[in-house]
């Protein structure tokens, strides 16, 4: 075993630039996934069959096919179909955001259903309109219960964002690979990238715990 990290040193800034790329991608995807996922969850619990059908079909499609396939369809197939030369970043954000929405919508749906039916009735009896009831009464309670599951989804997304290296988006993973092939040594750059991923997830976990603790102040 001959590990030599000294050769890696000149490439460290190059790899570190990937942190920003990964964070940007994961962050925007999480936001898209969360907003779209919430809307889909609301569609799933309505009595309107059209919206419900759409949301169910959406979830089925994005959960039922590999993420890497969705990514490649968006990146390689959209230009062929429309002539629009989609950037790697936009493809990645779309694929991850749309995919994550499917999972998030299931988590949020379960969270909404777990809120006591009496809460809805109490709000209705006070004359609170549906939208305000959802925003002020039901969703805050649902989110509190599903926060651990939601954080898990965000952590998975952050790590799995590494597969964007297949469309040559210059994230942490891709940069580690490039350095690996420059040096003819793969272990050091990959290990280094792994460490950075772990640190990012660790920080994300801590943020999750912090939010969780703040939400529990009413217990």
């Amino acid at each position, binding site marked *: 075993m001959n590990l030599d990290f000294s050769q890696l040193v000149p490439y460290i800034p190059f790899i570190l630039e990937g942190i920003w790329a990964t964070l940007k991608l994961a962050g925007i995807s999480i936001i898209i996934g969360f907003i779209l996922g919430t809307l889909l969850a609301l569609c799933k619990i309505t009595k309107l069959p059209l919206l419900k059908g759409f949301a169910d079909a959406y979830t089925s499609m994005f959960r039922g096919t590999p993420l890497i396939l969705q990514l490649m369809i968006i990146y390689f197939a959209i230009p062929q179909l429309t002539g629009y030369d989609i950037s790697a970043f936009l493809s990645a954000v779309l694929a991850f955001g749309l995919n994550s929405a499917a999972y998030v919508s299931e988590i949020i749906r379960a969270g909404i259903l777990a809120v006591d039916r*009496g*809460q809805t009735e109490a709000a*209705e*009896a006070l*004359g609170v309109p549906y939208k*305000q009831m959802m925003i002020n*009464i039901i969703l*805050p309670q649902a989110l*509190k219960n599903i926060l651990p599951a939601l954080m898990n989804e965000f952590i998975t997304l952050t790590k799995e964002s590494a597969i964007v290296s297949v469309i040559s988006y210059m994230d942490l993973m891709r940069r580690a690979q490039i350095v690996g092939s420059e040096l003819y040594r793969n272990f050091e750059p990959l290990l280094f990238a792994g460490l950075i991923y772990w640190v990012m997830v660790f920080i994300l976990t801590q943020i999750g715990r912090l939010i969780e603790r703040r939400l529990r102040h009413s*217990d």
Partner: protein
Amino acid sequence: MIKAAGITKNFGKNSVLKNVSTTINRGEVVAVIGPSGSGKSTFLRCLNLLEQPTSGEIWINDQAITDRKTNKLEVRKQIGMVFQHFHLFPHMTVLENVTYAPKKVKKMKSIDAEAKAKGLIAKVGLSDKMNTYPSRLSGGQKQRVAIARALAMEPEIMLFDEPTSALDPEMVKEVLDVMKDLVDTGMTMVIVTHEMNFAREVADRILFLDDGKLMEEGDPGTFFSQPKTDRAKDFLAKIL
């Protein structure tokens, strides 16, 4: 004034209310009693459209609220409701629970809503719990907050769905006392209850439901001493 005309409610094949008709006048206090499963709560829940009757009409003042064109939210603004299990909003403090609907539904200014809420919370004896979350309150305290929350909307009518059934025995009185104060203000009240002494004491009229039918109605004195129907006699014999 509330007028129910031929209210029937079916859940699937199960008929829970059968052709119930009655009129409740302004300022009247009506206690709805009967065995469990007799449709008391369903009747109450029809009055603010938490349940849509299968057939029949309900009039609040001069408005047929069972008409499909009626805006349910507008109807409910005039009718306060108190539930067996309180249903306070757990993520809001006592004060926030009471100010929420006036602010969001009535668009009252924060400062006015809070002044009003503080008055109501004081009236139910919980001024020292203003910034407490519901999880820190006893059942009796929760129910008193729930009453204050409903009153904050300045309803014309108050509905109570077994307000003391989920309480420990020593907390029943504090809730009933608050309700008695409310009776004294002349509020129109419909109360589903198992507290027979309370019903006898404060109600102007008793409605006795059994198996979804309004079997008997009358003033408490007559009803409790000389019930007309056998069902009512049976029921009273079991519980008194």
